């Protein structure tokens, strides 16, 4: 099966999962109604309203978050040359969470919209800190150094967050749910700017894909081929922060997608980034859609945090992949 055909199948899977996400929920809406909601919208029909507002925004966000996290993970694994790299590693999840908790307890910001912006800023701050620390002292980005710096910053922000939560216990319940990763209570109008940011970042990574293949061949080879490795690395870091930051801002801490999806796509599709990145985007989106759909219905009427679902299903997959590692594992 050629790579193009595989991507095509993934895109088809995405379409089907989106339809599923629109149909499934506390009330099951048959597909005919879903189609009607878009083609002949009837403002008085509850199902139509449900589909076009709540479920549509949720579906779109799941796609955006899934794609962003997966691609961010792939970029990070290329940047640090460490197969364990993921957005969690850059301290981005931790930084975003901390800023939200900080602002909501100190300034009592409780609207979901304010949270979104706090998270994005927090993610950017954490990412910059890690980049600065990883870069200090020696010439170019040493992969090991960045990984260690990321772990340190992540732990630091985590600790601060926990401190705030233990001191100010009122917000604990709601924040805990968000921290675990959730796609509920986000209106499309508010999330729109972040969705657009995601989209642009994703397109940016596609442009960078060819460069990534060269960079992956090794520092000396890349420079020898005339690539401006420093510049490419900076561009990669910016894209990672944009992608993972907007994902966390939208949906809280969903940690497993960025780690697992690149491994899956690399094994199933290609390590060539021109195929890998679109593959990651599509697979990440499908994975998250399925996880979110399941999270909505598995324990009705309660909702399970999406992050929990992705971990519970993603982890066994990852374990199987790790076992099949073969000669190098």
């Amino acid at each position, binding site marked *: 099966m050629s790579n193009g055909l595989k991507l095509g199948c993934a895109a088809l899977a995405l379409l089907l999962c989106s339809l599923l996400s629109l149909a499934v929920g506390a009330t099951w809406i048959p597909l005919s109604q879903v189609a009607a909601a878009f083609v002949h919208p009837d403002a008085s029909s509850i199902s139509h309203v449900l589909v076009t507002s709540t479920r549509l925004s949720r579906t779109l966000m799941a796609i955006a978050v899934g794609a962003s996290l997966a691609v961010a993970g792939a970029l990070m694994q290329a940047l640090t040359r460490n197969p364990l790299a993921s957005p969690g590693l850059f301290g981005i999840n931790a930084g975003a969470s901390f800023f939200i908790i900080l602002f909501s307890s100190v300034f009592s910001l409780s609207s979901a919209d304010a949270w979104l912006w706090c998270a994005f800023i927090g993610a950017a701050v954490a990412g910059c800190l890690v980049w600065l620390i990883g870069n200090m002292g020696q010439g170019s980005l040493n992969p090991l150094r960045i990984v260690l710096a990321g772990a*340190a910053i992540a732990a630091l922000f985590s600790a601060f967050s926990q401190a705030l939560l233990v001191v100010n216990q009122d917000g604990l319940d709601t924040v805990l749910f968000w921290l675990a990763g959730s796609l509920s209570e986000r209106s499309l109008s508010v999330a729109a700017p972040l969705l657009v940011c995601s989209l642009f970042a994703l397109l940016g990574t596609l442009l960078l894909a060819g460069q990534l293949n060269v960079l992956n061949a090794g520092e000396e080879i890349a420079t020898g081929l005339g690539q401006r490795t420093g510049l490419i690395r900076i561009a990669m870091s910016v894209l990672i922060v944009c992608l993972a930051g907007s994902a966390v801002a939208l949906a809280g801490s969903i940690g497993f997608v960025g*780690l697992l999806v690149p491994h899956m796509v690399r094994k199933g599709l290609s390590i060539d980034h021109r195929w890998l990145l679109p593959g990651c985007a599509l697979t990440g989106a499908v994975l998250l859609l399925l996880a979110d759909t399941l999270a909505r219905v598995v324990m009705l009427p309660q909702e399970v945090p999406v992050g929990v679902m992705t*971990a519970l299903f993603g982890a066994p997959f990852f374990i199987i992949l790790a*076992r099949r590692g073969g000669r190098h594992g």
Partner: protein
Amino acid sequence: MDKLMTVRCGGFSRRINLSTLLRLVLALALTLLVILCSLSLGKVNLSPLAVLRILFSSADPSLTFIVEQLRFPRIFLAALVGAALSVSGLILQSIIRNPLASPDLLGITSGASAAAVLYLSFFSVALGQQFLPVAAMLGAGLATLAIYLLAWKQGASPLRLVLIGVGVSAMLTACTTFILVFSPLTTTLSAYVWLTGSVYGASWPEPLALGGWLLGICPLLVLLARQVMVQQLDDSLAQGIGVRVQWLRAGLLLVSVALAGAAIAWGGAIAFVGLIAPHIAKRLIGPGFGGQAAMAALIGATLVMLADLAGRTLFLPLDLPAGIFVAVLGTPFFLYLLIKQRH
């Protein structure tokens, strides 16, 4: 150049690195100093001399109570927890040959956490808090066993151990979150404090229990110590000089899990000690497991004690979990070392 001294006596021979010994003595002195400070400071501030008087002769009974019954057990527990976690992390980093290896990575922390949260949500009402350490250790042990078995494929390679550890940890963390999200708020709070890592309210039975457990593990550690360095060679090379690699790795893993599991069981899930303290120890002492382990133990103990001191005194009247301050204290130092690194 390190000065080496050879000790030979009958059938016993050993080489001792004098500069390492000196550094260890200095570290020990520092640790004792920190213990003294911790005993002195708190809601009631005492002078160090007063503390020494209380410990070695008799004094005001209420002050004696504060020092000997409230503070000392807590500080002792903090020290033991810190020491156990750092030695555990050191062993793991040498087995896995990756500087990021720590008890948190191999499912020990997440296994203990999941078991503890499960216990707090479902069993603590019926059985009380006393079996919490048992649950935690069971969780840690089962999680590591699962990881080891899953990683076994004609041998457990370091990379596979790490990868599968990541997977299993993620699953267990998800389970923990799942339980936390759906359990009543009161359980969530106490669970959260436990998850952050706290030695709050420790009384003498606890450090003594942990101490007993660690003393039981120590002989195994001492016996295996000389083999840790060889184990860092390639598997084929190590086997070539007669090391039974798979057995050794399993044995070391067992020791590491026992140490970390016990520490987490009594001190809660204090993350990060098992990661930073070994790194700091390795920067201060050259290759050689014995010296590094002793240094890591002292550094870990000091770190957690200082963290607990900060939690007790900085935000009076609040008493914050030590786990928070471990990261706050340890991270800048670790980052400083990272920046100064020459490689």
